[in-house]
């Protein structure tokens, strides 16, 4: 969806930023947003500072959106990994190259897709 959104909005993004914190995504305030996501997911002591950075740069509404998006995907990853679903065919076709580029096959949950394909 990230690639679809940047293409739809004629933006340029380095998708390696998703898995490599030293890479700049090119998205406005991307570093602060990814830092916020990481410290919220890991329940780090750095969360208050990351939260304040979002408010200072983008406002309270942006914090609501960022917290909501993290909350949504904290739920979705646990559904996907807890039920053992494979990725959808259309999604696999559209993102296979990107998954390889980012090395996502090393994640344990990749076996759910491999298993379903071989079933």
């Amino acid at each position: 969806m990230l690639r679809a959104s940047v293409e739809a909005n004629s933006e340029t993004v380095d998708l390696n930023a998703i898995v490599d914190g030293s890479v700049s995504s090119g998205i406005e305030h991307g570093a602060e947003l990814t830092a916020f996501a990481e410290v919220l997911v890991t329940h780090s002591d750095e969360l208050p500072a990351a939260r304040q950075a979002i408010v200072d740069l983008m406002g309270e509404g942006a914090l609501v959106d960022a917290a909501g998006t993290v909350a949504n995907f904290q739920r979705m990853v646990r559904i996907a990994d807890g039920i053992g679903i494979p990725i959808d065919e259309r999604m696999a076709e559209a993102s296979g190259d990107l998954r390889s580029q980012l090395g996502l096959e090393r994640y344990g949950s990749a076996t759910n897709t491999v298993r379903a394909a071989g079933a």
Partner: protein
Amino acid sequence: METFTFADVAIAVPDRVTDPHRKVWAKRAGPGSWWTGAERIAIADESRRALDCGFCAERREALSAEAVEGEHDSGGVLPAVALEAVHKIVTDSARLSLALYEGLVADGLSDAHYSELVGVLVAVFSIDEFHRGIGAALEPLPEAEPGDPERRRPSGATMEGAWLATVPADALDPEDADIYGGGRHAPNVVRALSLVPENVRTLGDLHGAHYLSYDEMRIMEKIRELSRSQMELVAAGTSAVNECFY
């Protein structure tokens, strides 16, 4: 007493967020398809206890979680097999596996009980994460309501590639016809919890509350405070930290 007022934070939380949160809280209190109201509240309570569970912390750090012996910090309401499922899904989701799921089933947890357990815990856990994200105190859990579970298994449930049965869009019972929005196709992650249809309704409500409704997902222009690309960067970052392939 009014819930989800966010009175402790000076942040305006829109109704599109608070209303579905209240709806989830009301539903959690009553009996579900397979668990009683008291058990559903216990599942929610354990999703909170798991974050401070010493046994979970030790296993998460271990190369092989199963090699670590100990007991979960628990409220003592849920059977051990359900306790294990809740704590594992909350604290170590990247290492969930078919073998672990099959072990839970062998220990007496039915596929339908497991589906509802996942649905209850992810709803409450994600609402709690939203609270932590904006710096608000967690909402107190509601009091359990009496009553018996419905114990209805969808007639069209079948194995579709996940670890447990799900319901294809063309095999829904009449009373569940709404759960995929009337469409002929639903993505795997939407069908994932369909062994308990109420799970799917809750998932849709919270998707719109926290992120975008299914209809809004087709809109790539900015419709929130964050641009769509900013939202997707946060989403991708969250999935990456969780090591989720999906």
